[in-house]
């Protein structure tokens, strides 16, 4: 295990947070600047690079044909994977995705899946036999914290822009030919906070995550629903804190949705 973060830096972040200050000068509830690029991978059905401050992730979608789950014979599915590439940070290791990456992927997946933004029934090709499975994988290209939100934004945009592959008469994919788009009925987004020195910080950087006693992510939709929640790391939150974070999350994600709508 590599660790390039110094204990003294962590202590500095905690001391600053106690005075309601952050190491990069942001307000406690201030998000870093978001930049969005789309369509870089021609082989993907959709692809997006999201830059959140210095954090950079690339997401890509491949639509594939699979068999339905035994209990949902008329429904397709999605599968989200996350990988922290060793090229993205000195502390990232190569190899199979670890626990952190599995949690990250599952929380991003849940926010979208549970919002019912994607109608899985529309992903059915032949009931009981053939369905669409949307494999979305996102990779960290430069890791500077809050991969939950960066991954969530990149995933949502990738699904929004996804082209559906064309099928031939035997329901096999015709490569590089498309018919229509995957339509989403909602725009779910994750918003993530950490607790450092007893204070709540929106959109944590890498060092802030390392300094955190607890983490909280909430998936929200534009029509007022919560679609996912995840409390992480050892510490705890009060109900008051949770409710406050949910309130900020609804407001903050609305700003991001406006930016996404401009693409």
């Amino acid at each position: 295990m590599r660790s390039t973060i110094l204990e003294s830096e962590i202590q500095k972040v905690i001391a600053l947070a106690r005075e309601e200050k952050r190491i990069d000068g942001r307000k406690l509830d201030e998000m870093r600047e978001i930049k969005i690029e789309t369509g870089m991978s021609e082989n993907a059905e959709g692809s997006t690079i999201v830059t959140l401050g210095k954090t950079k992730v690339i997401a890509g979608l491949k639509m594939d044909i699979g068999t339905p789950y035994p209990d949902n014979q008329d429904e397709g599915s999605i599968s989200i994977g996350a990988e922290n590439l060793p090229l993205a940070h000195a502390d990232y290791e190569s190899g199979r995705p670890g626990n952190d990456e599995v949690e990250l992927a599952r929380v991003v997946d849940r926010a979208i899946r549970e919002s019912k933004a994607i109608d899985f029934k529309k992903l059915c090709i032949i009931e009981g036999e053939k369905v669409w499975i949307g494999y979305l994988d996102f990779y960290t290209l430069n890791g500077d914290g809050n991969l939950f939100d960066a991954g969530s934004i990149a995933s949502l945009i990738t699904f929004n822009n996804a082209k559906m592959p064309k099928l031939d008469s035997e329901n096999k994919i015709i490569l590089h030919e498309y018919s229509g788009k995957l339509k989403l009925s909602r725009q779910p987004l994750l918003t993530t906070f950490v607790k450092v020195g007893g204070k709540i910080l929106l959109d944590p950087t890498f060092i802030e995550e390392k300094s955190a006693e607890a983490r909280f992510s909430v998936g929200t939709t534009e029509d007022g629903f919560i679609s996912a929640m995840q409390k992480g790391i050892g510490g705890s939150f009060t109900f008051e804190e949770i409710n406050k974070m949910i309130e900020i999350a609804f407001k903050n994600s609305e700003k991001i949705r406006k930016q996404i709508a401009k693409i």
Partner: protein
Amino acid sequence: MKNEKKVDYKKDKKRLDGRKMDELRPIKIDVGVIPNADGSAYLEWGQNKVYAAVYGPREALPKHSADPLKAVVKVEYRMTSFSVPQRKRPGPNRRDQEISKVLGEALAKTIFVEQFPNTEIGVYVEVVDSNAGSRVACLTAASCALADAGIPMRDMVSATGIGKAFNELVVDLNKDEEDAPDAVDIPIGILPNSEEIVLLQLDGLLTIKEWEQVSKMGVKSCKNVYEIQKQALKKKFELGDAGKKIVELKEDKTVKKKVKK
């Protein structure tokens, strides 16, 4: 192949994508794109898009991998799941492992590894979109990332694909050409100043005469790639107008001081 007509480059004098036989696809390189890395590069080569990042020299981990006489150059070549027409399963496959190995060996030759005993130099390359020739794109990008990281090197490594398709010798085969019935694919990487070969693989059937001819085309193309690499590095490290002025001012001061003395 969608093309029903028989393609014959000897007769057509032109390739399926309109290129000349010895013409490379457009190449674009940006140096220093990954802030966390000690050195990095992003490279577009036709449809191929790759990122390369270098970390090190740093402590070799696991500890038993360290070599007391030189740095260990660790290369990891990977492809994102969506970089190919048919989704690739996450995790390295045998192809990724082989490519990582040959790329590492190609770079080890040019790095002054003996200057950094007991350390590792991690070189990570990730393909995010592909269309034949991703390994030479990665080797070219990795070499730029190493230079960006300030790792002492004997020379750059410049690479390209060469080979044969549709009855003619060509450079930089694309996917349609790699799928030709008579396709020969030869990834080649050289040290452009000494013309030493550090990467060489071949898939297909070729006569000695054809090899002699096509290898010459390869050296020429690698040198073209080298020029693009140099330009990309200069773009990052060359001083802007403001920087040039500062240097001029500093030089002036030293001149004045000397005069005073």
